[in-house]
């Protein structure tokens, strides 16, 4: 086990940021800490890096207790949301920083900086200042700088949070490929479930200072431990008092099944390639259904149309606890 987090608690005054966190992160994996903003995931990452200290609990990195170690001695690479590059240093100097601190020979530093800049596709910018780079390039620079010292673990705090959608997507794919190439144990924090599902080997869902579930993207999506995880990992709607994914709702214009609930289409709109239909059931539930545009056209769904809805056979449905109390 590369990182062993056990019994971590952290409060700021009355606010409980983290409560009894126990997580093991195996060597070489890419793990996402996923959860809503203010849920404590960044705090956990900072505690692993030694930038914050926990009130109680221990952090073990590669078998040695790191709980009391200062950040300088943990050998972790940390990448911040807002890059935190050294603005007055050139790209090459930024990457060289950690190596110069470690008093590596000059030739080695030059060679390693060149290698890393090639790895992050910034080799042609080595003499530029960070202010002359785009956001995506700055974040790649920050990544190269963190990787330069060959860290035991690489920690990324919302690394793509400050970038626009397109660059985000590109960097996301690139991070995955980079990880497969470099193979350093990596933990990244995100509030974007799509990002986590797409990139991570394993996802730790954190909400209100607690771990809700740990599992692979498939496990989390297909077998959510509770309604929070289900709701956070994708769109949900309620049908017959249960949470269900909108694309798992079967909709027909004739009563074909006994378990189908009758309702009326209240609204129908098209978003790109899919159609979203809102059905007001006779029980007074507002069910949202997602289907392909051609299917919707085939059924001729329009506002006022009488329909029958039911969960598709084999669809995942979770009792909706919070929706009832909300």
């Amino acid at each position, binding site marked *: 086990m590369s990182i062993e987090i056990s019994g971590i608690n952290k409060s700021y005054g009355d606010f409980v940021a983290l409560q009894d966190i126990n997580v093991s992160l195996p060597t070489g994996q890419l793990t996402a800490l996923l959860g809503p903003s203010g849920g404590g995931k960044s705090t956990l990452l900072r505690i692993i890096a030694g*930038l914050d200290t926990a009130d109680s609990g221990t952090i073990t990195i590669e078998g040695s207790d790191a709980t009391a170690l200062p950040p300088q001695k943990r050998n972790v690479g940390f990448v911040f949301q807002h890059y935190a590059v050294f603005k007055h240093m050139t790209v090459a100097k930024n990457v060289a*920083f950690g190596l110069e601190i470690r008093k590596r020979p000059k030739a080695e530093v030059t060679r390693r900086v060149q290698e890393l800049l090639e790895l992050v596709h910034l080799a042609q910018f080595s003499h530029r200042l960070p202010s002359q780079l785009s956001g995506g390039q700055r974040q790649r620079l920050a990544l190269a700088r963190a990787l330069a010292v060959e860290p035991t673990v690489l920690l990324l705090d919302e690394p793509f949070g400050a970038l626009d959608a397109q660059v985000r997507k590109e960097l996301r794919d690139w991070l995955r490929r980079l990880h497969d190439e470099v193979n350093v144990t990596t933990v990244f924090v995100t509030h974007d479930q799509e990002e986590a599902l797409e990139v991570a080997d394993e996802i730790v869902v954190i909400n209100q200072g607690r771990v809700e579930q740990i599992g692979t993207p498939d496990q989390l999506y297909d077998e959510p431990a509770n309604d929070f995880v289900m709701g956070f990992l994708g769109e949900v709607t309620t049908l017959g008092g249960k949470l269900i994914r909108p694309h798992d709702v079967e909709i027909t214009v004739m009563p074909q099944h006994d378990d189908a609930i009758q309702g009326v289409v209240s609204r129908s709109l098209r978003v790109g390639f899919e159609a979203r239909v809102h059905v007001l059931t006779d029980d007074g539930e507002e069910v949202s259904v997602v289907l392909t545009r051609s299917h919707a056209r085939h059924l001729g769904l329009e506002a006022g149309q009488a329909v029958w809805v039911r969960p598709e056979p084999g669809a995942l449905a979770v009792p909706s606890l919070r929706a009832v109390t909300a």
Partner: protein
Amino acid sequence: MTDVLAPPAGPARTRRPSGGPFRLSTASGIGLGIGLVWFSILVLLPLAAVVGAAAAGGWSAFAGTLTDPQTFAALRLTVVEAVLVTVVNAVIGTVVAWVLVRDDFVGKRLLDVVIDIPFALPTIVAGLVLLSLYGPDSPVGFNIVNTRTGIFLALLFVTLPFVVRTVQPVLLEIEVEAEEAAASLGASRFTTFRRVILPSLVPAITAGSSLGFARAISEFGSLVLISGNTPYRTEVASLKILKFLEGDNQAGAAAVAVLLLLVAVVVIVGLDILSRRVARRG
């Protein structure tokens, strides 16, 4: 309309008008005009007049004034004291700014306000303040009147806020994350300060130091009471100018004034070059 398919002309505002590279719009032309007239009336013309007055006596009179041993001693004392004060300010001012921005302590807000008192006081009052504690009737038994230490202290007093006030806002803007990044890369607190924080502060430190230096070589009010004005020992340039004027030696006064001006320009330009060098080196 046959040219609808022609490529659109580039946006007009990014193109320079054909009248030349520095053609201004009417509004900015008026603005620049007002600015220049204002600056000329207040600064450029009087400066030119002083240079003119210094030159009126001819080169030999000018050189003669400055090489006069007593005048030279006053100029040297002024510049040496100002340099020392500037060096102390650069260090202490940065420390004070650091404490005000980064540390939390009781009375911080009060200290933040009190820093400006040397700015706010008429300088003759500053002299009086120092005199009451470090004068002939000093309650702490420390008399600085008519000593170079006294001049040093008075200059430190009146120039204290410059570096503090220029460094403070820059320090507030510095991202703590860059320091955290340096720490996780293995840099000690000292290395982080030297290689990450200081380079960002250097321009502000030099700007404050330049202001402080200019103030120090020109200081008058606080020194009238403290320096004692003894030729060769505690006579500074500004008081020397006063003496020339009292002796109806306009050209002598102007000559000293021009030299002070020259020193100020050289030091300010020099500090600016230094700050660019350091900021770039990292």
